[in-house]
């Protein structure tokens, strides 16, 4: 991220600043981000703005990205792990238009990755920033609807209720029935919502080399996990945390130990499983990996897309 310069072209009425937000707002958001980094896992209230996309569609992530992006950044946006889902396309186009930055689908090429519901399979590295879109930042919200109460519980580190909930899951079902937005404890202090990523992705947060920023626009909260931070999924000694496992590899690229989407092929129960991370799948196919359903076809759509959008 580079120092930003004001980009006001005041020739026409409807001109917007670089990356849409005005510099005052960006400064306010950066302060919240810095505070979040200083207190890992703590939800920092910030004066979230109305964005030109609806609340619940990534306004928190967009504001965080807008506050940190510079002209030399390369942006990747994924939704459900995919670069081509409509909302990811829309957000990528937003920054291509308002900031004129280079966008990419290639995970290693990106300096900022904004995501909804997934962490890329390709391990992220130092210098990259992962920005999460968060709908409900409060991990205790479904146990206690009141903000005044949950803030108190965090302040007193009173997380018994969460353990009781997980225990009740085990008592009722034999295992913990939380599959996504699985609560984690950050640096031994704050219980944090990892956003609705499947719990499969939780271990990737632990001691990640990458700075992880979380933005919740409607709820007006920002939080952060600095690089190399302890992120531990809550569990019990006799019921240790475990991630999802799939019985079969990706039908397109043959990858194992990755998160797969189930695709319905017909109305007769035909199913196939493919990588949810589209770039990972494409680059594996480009490297010659081949899944059961791809047959002998050459890798299709394999080239990663890095481009500078026309303003």
């Amino acid at each position, binding site marked *: 991220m580079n120092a930003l310069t004001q980009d006001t072209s005041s020739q026409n009425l409807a001109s917007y600043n670089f990356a849409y937000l005005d510099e005052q707002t960006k400064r306010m958001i950066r302060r919240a981000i810095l505070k979040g980094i200083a207190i890992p896992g703590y939800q920092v209230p910030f004066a979230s703005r109305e964005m030109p996309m609806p609340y619940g*569609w990534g306004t928190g992530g967009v504001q965080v990205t807008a506050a940190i992006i510079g002209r030399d950044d390369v942006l990747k946006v994924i939704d459900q792990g995919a670069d081509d889902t409509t909302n990811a396309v829309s957000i990528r186009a937003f920054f291509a238009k308002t900031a004129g930055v280079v966008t990419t689908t290639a995970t290693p090429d990106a300096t900022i990755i904004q995501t909804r519901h997934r962490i890329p399979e390709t391990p992220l590295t130092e210098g990259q920033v992962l920005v999460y879109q968060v709908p409900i930042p409060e991990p205790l919200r479904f146990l206690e609807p009141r903000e005044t109460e949950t803030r108190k519980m965090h302040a007193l580190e009173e997380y018994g209720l969460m353990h009781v909930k997980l225990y009740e899951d085990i008592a009722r079902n034999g295992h913990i029935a939380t599959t996504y937005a699985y609560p984690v404890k950050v640096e031994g202090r704050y219980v944090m919502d990892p956003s609705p990523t499947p719990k499969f992705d939780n271990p990737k947060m632990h001691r990640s080399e990458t700075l992880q920023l979380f933005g919740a626009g409607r709820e007006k909260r920002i939080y952060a996990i600095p690089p190399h931070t302890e992120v531990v999924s809550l569990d019990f000694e006799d019921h240790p945390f475990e991630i999802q496992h799939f019985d079969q590899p990706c039908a397109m690229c043959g990858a194992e130990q990755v998160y797969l989407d189930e695709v319905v092929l017909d109305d007769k129960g035909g199913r196939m499983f493919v990588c949810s991370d589209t770039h990972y799948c494409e680059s594996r196919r480009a490297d010659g990996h081949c899944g059961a359903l791809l047959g002998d076809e050459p890798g299709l759509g394999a080239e990663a897309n890095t481009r500078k959008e026309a303003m």
Partner: protein
Amino acid sequence: MYVAVKGGEAAIANAHRLLAARRRGDANVPGLTLEQIAGQLSLAVDRVMGEGSLYDPELAALAIKQARGDLIEAVFLLRAYRTTLPRFGHSEPMDTGRMVVERRISAIYKDLPGGQLLGPTFDYTHRLLDPELAGDAPVDAPETGEDANERVVRVSDILGDEGLIEDDPLADASRPVADITRTPTEYPMDRDARLQTLARGDEGFLLALAYSTQRGYARSHPFVGEIRIGEVDVEVMIPELGFTVAIGRVKLTECQMVNQFQGSAKAPPQFTRGYGLVFGHAERKAMAMSLCDRALRASELGEDIVAPAQDEEFVLSHCDNVQATGFVEHLKLPHYVDFQAELDLVRRMRAEHFEAATKAADETAATDDTMEAAE
């Protein structure tokens, strides 16, 4: 054969093109002008200005046109524009006592200084569809009269003289005025921030909550002390000049609800206030707002909190329709990653369930066999 979905960009572009065509409708029919919308659908414009918290009839009309008449979408368009505007400061407190009233009614005094003035109201119209309106028949010019030059005193001031109603809370001038668009929400919320939140809250949501207080969920025995609609000067202090300057006028609807109050340990028996103030001509909204404001003063007045309308976090964090519509509608975004996780869990739990059931059935069968053998 499965092919990874590509072409989101083309799909979005085509969808927006179709939307533009649908918005325009039949090209043989002349398009709506902003003057037509602002002039003939003025209550829709007022609602969009109020909930969009931006006083600009022309932009509100544009938003309504662009939103195909979807008022919440129009509010959203206006808000997203408003948020990009620089904030210069705030006006001096507006004196609604000096409003140039177009409508002014009180339900608690038959006659009062300034009189009852019905103004342009739907009240007492018979709701019969008027076929003549399908055309463009000329309309009679409104009746006019002499200005009586009588000061239109606020009803709350009349009551206040006798000490029967609580005083208007004194604003601490040293404290900055809250701005809910520039500071994150914190609870408990002060009354200035609460009134701002209610003023741009969804009319339907506040109406329903207000209605619930009348039906016994936090009953407040309300009377309409006064509703007044009209234009008020907006004055700002110019530091370089050292005095205030009127920079324009806005149309406002103000509702002062007068509520019975038994008194408590904190306050003597007297009437209490619920306050509603909204941009434009928005009587229903102002009335609903004043009932909600009064209900939300429960803890301040030492009343028991027993109903949703009194619950600050419940009311204030759910009354914004831009937030509400965004989050409700985001459910149509793809959720297949999380759904996959749930599929996996449900399949596993079903397998365990049927396994347990089969095992139980086998055991019962086995017991039956032994019992038969014993017989």
